[in-house]
C-alpha cells in the first residue's frame, strides 16, 4: 500500500458508521456586522487601510495620472514599472506624452528570469490595477495576470494601485460571491491590506519588511 492508501484507510476506519456534519453556513454573520451605507463604504476602506499605513487619495478616472506623477516626484522617483498592455498603462503613457513629463516607464514584458536583477534592485515603484476593494478589512483584491504579473505588487518598494469606487465591496463574503471566485481562481489571487510589515522584534511594528514599504491607493470616484 502507498502512504496515501494507508492514511486514507486509517481515516476511513475511524469514521466508520459516523454521519458527516451538515453545512449550516451562517452567511448573515459574515455580512450583517460588516455592511456599510453606499456613501460610507469608501470611508471605511480608507480608514482601515490608513490605520496600517496605507495611503489613499480620492481622484477620478481622468485625473489619476497627474497624481501618479506628483507622488513619484515627491519621493524623487523618476521611473515606474507598468504594464503597457493594460488600459491604465496606456492612459498613463498617453498622459506623459501629452504633458511632457519626464517620468520613465518600464514594462514588465518578459519573464522575470530575464531581468531579475533590475526588478529586484533597480525598480523603485510600480503601478497596477485591482479587481476591487473590501471595505470591512481595507483590502485590495489583486489577481495577477500575464500583463500584470505577481511580482509587480511585491518587489518594488512603492506600489501604486488603482481602485474603482464601483468595485468596492462591503466584505470578503460579498466580494467572493459577487465576483464568482469559485468559478475560476487565477494561479495566484491576493488580498493586499497595506504595505508589508512585521512586529517580530519585540512587538514593535516596522513597515517594509520584504514587500513594498509604501502602498498608495488611488480611488477613482467616477469609475
Amino acid at each position, binding site marked *: 500500500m502507498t502512504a496515501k492508501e494507508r492514511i486514507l484507510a486509517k481515516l476511513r476506519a475511524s469514521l466508520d458508521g459516523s454521519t458527516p*456534519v451538515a453545512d*449550516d453556513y451562517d452567511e448573515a454573520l459574515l455580512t450583517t456586522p460588516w455592511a456599510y451605507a453606499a456613501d460610507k463604504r469608501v470611508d471605511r476602506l480608507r480608514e482601515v487601510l490608513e490605520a496600517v499605513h496605507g495611503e489613499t487619495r480620492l481622484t477620478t478616472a481622468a485625473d489619476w495620472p497627474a497624481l501618479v506623477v506628483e507622488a513619484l516626484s515627491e519621493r524623487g522617483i523618476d521611473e515606474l514599472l507598468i504594464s503597457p498592455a493594460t488600459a491604465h498603462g496606456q492612459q498613463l503613457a498617453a498622459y506623459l506624452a501629452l504633458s511632457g513629463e519626464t517620468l520613465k516607464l518600464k514594462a514588465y514584458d518578459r519573464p522575470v528570469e530575464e531581468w531579475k536583477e533590475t526588478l529586484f534592485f533597480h525598480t523603485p515603484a510600480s503601478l497596477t490595477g485591482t479587481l476591487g476593494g473590501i471595505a470591512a478589512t481595507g*483590502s485590495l483584491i489583486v489577481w495577477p495576470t500575464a500583463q500584470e504579473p505577481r511580482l509587480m505588487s511585491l518587489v518594488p518598494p512603492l506600489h501604486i494601485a488603482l481602485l474603482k469606487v464601483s468595485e468596492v465591496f462591503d466584505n470578503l463574503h460579498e466580494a467572493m460571491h459577487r465576483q464568482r471566485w469559485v468559478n475560476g481562481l487565477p494561479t*495566484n489571487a491576493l488580498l493586499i491590506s497595506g504595505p508589508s510589515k*512585521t512586529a517580530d522584534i*519585540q*512587538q514593535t511594528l516596522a513597515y517594509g519588511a520584504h514587500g513594498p514599504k509604501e502602498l498608495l491607493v488611488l480611488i477613482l470616484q467616477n469609475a
Partner: protein
Amino acid sequence: MSSPANVPEAPIEFKRNVREALADGQLRRNFRGAMDFLMAKRAAQFPDEDERERLRTFGNQVRARALSRLPELLERLETSLTRNGVKVHWAETVEEANAIVHSIVQAHEAKHVIKGKSMVSEEMEMNHFLGDHGVDCLESDMGEFIVQLREEKPSHIIMPAIHLNAGQVASLFHDKLDVDYTEDVDRLIQIGRETLRRKFFEADIGVSGVNFAIAETGTLLLVENEGNGRMSTTVPPVHIAVTGIEKVVENLRDVVPLLSLLTRSATGQPITTYVNMISGPRKADELDGPREVHLVLLDNGRSQAFADGELRQTLNCIRCGACMNHCPVYTRIGGHAYGTVYPGPIGKIATPHMLGLEKTRDLPSASSLCGACGEVCPVRIPIPALLRRLREEAVRAPDDVPHHLRGQGAKYSAKERMIWKAWSKMNTSPALYRLVGYAGTRLRGLMPSNIGPWTEHHAPPRLAARTLHELAREHLGDE
C-alpha cells in the same frame, strides 16, 4: 523521531526546563510584555461578544464538518490540485515527508532553499535534514530568521522570536551579520530585508506552509504580513508547500469565517497584509511564479488523534496561538521549556500524538486547568477537557481497554493505583472511614514533617485532635 515501539523513550526534561526558565528574569519579562500585548490586541478586535461567540461556533462547525468528511475531502483536494497542475504527495511520517522534499531537491539539483514560515517543516526538522544533505535552507520570516541565526527553535508559533527583545536582536545582528550595533527596530528590519532580498533572488526552491487547503477549488491559502511568504512562493522556480492532513476545508467560502477568526485571534488584526491564494504554477503565458508547485500532506500522528471522537477535536486547530497567549503557564515559562515544536496548550494536546505519551508524559499535567485556552480558542477546542483525557490515558493500566494511543500508560504506577484504590475503599465504607479517622486523629503526633514535594514549599499539614464527626456530634449533641 520514531523509535521501536517496545523501547520506552526518555521523556522531555520538562521539569528541568521549567526551573531554568523560571529563573530567567529577562525571559519572563519578555514573555509577560508580549502576552499582555497580544491579549489586548485580540480583545480590541472582538468588541462585540455576541458576534465573537457566534463566529467561534461557526468556526468550530466548519472545522468539524471538514473533519467529518476528511478522507473524501483530501481526495477531492488532490483531484482539484492535480487538475490545476500542482503535484500532491502523501507522507505518513516525517521521514517520508523529508524524503519527498529531498527527491524534489535532487531532481532540480537545488543548493539553496528559502523558506516562508511553516510549523510543519519544523515538525520535520527540514532545515537540519536538508543541511545534512548539503542543501542550504534559510528562513525568511524575520522572526524565524532571527531564531535560525541564534541556532534556536521558535518559541511561539506565530511570533517565533518573541522570547527576545530588541537589544538581544541588535547584538545578534552585530555579531552574525557584521553590521553596526543598533536597537532601532526599523533599522534592524531593513538589515533583515537587505540580507534576505538577495537570498530570495538566488534560491532554487521555495518552501512554505499552508493555512487552509481548499478542496473545492484546489487552492492553498497562506496568510502573512511581511511578504516573505509571497516571495518564497513566487520567486524561486519551484515551490514546495508542506502541511498537515487536517488543514483541508471543503469550500472556498469556508475560509471566510476561518480567516476572520485566525487573524483577529492571532495578532489582533482584521486581516493580515497579504492573503495569498495559490491555485497552480505559472501558466505558459505568465511571466513569473514557480514553474512547479508541490504539496506534501503529512500525517505524523494526526490520524491517531482522528481515531477518537473526543481527541479528534485537536485537529480543529487553525494555529492562531491565542491559547498560548492567554496561558498562565506559557507566559511564565515561555515556549522553549516545552521542548516541542508546538508549545503551550495546543502543543500539550497535539504533541502526544506526534511523539507519543512516553516522551510527552509531563505535558498534559503542565496546566492549572484554569480554562483560559478553551475560552479563547477560535474553533472551540475544549483544550482543558482534552488535557484531562490525556492525563487519564497517560496513567491507564496496561490491562485496561486499549485506546490506541502511542505511549499510553507511560505514567502508570501500580503503587499509585493501589493507593487510590485504598482511598476509594476507605471513603465508601463508613466503618473503615470512622476507623481511619479515629486512628489518624489519635496518632497525629506520628505524622512525618517531611512529605515530599509538598513540604518543599509549605508547612507540613497537621491533623485535628478529633474527627469532624466527633466535633459535629458534640456541637449538635443536645438538638
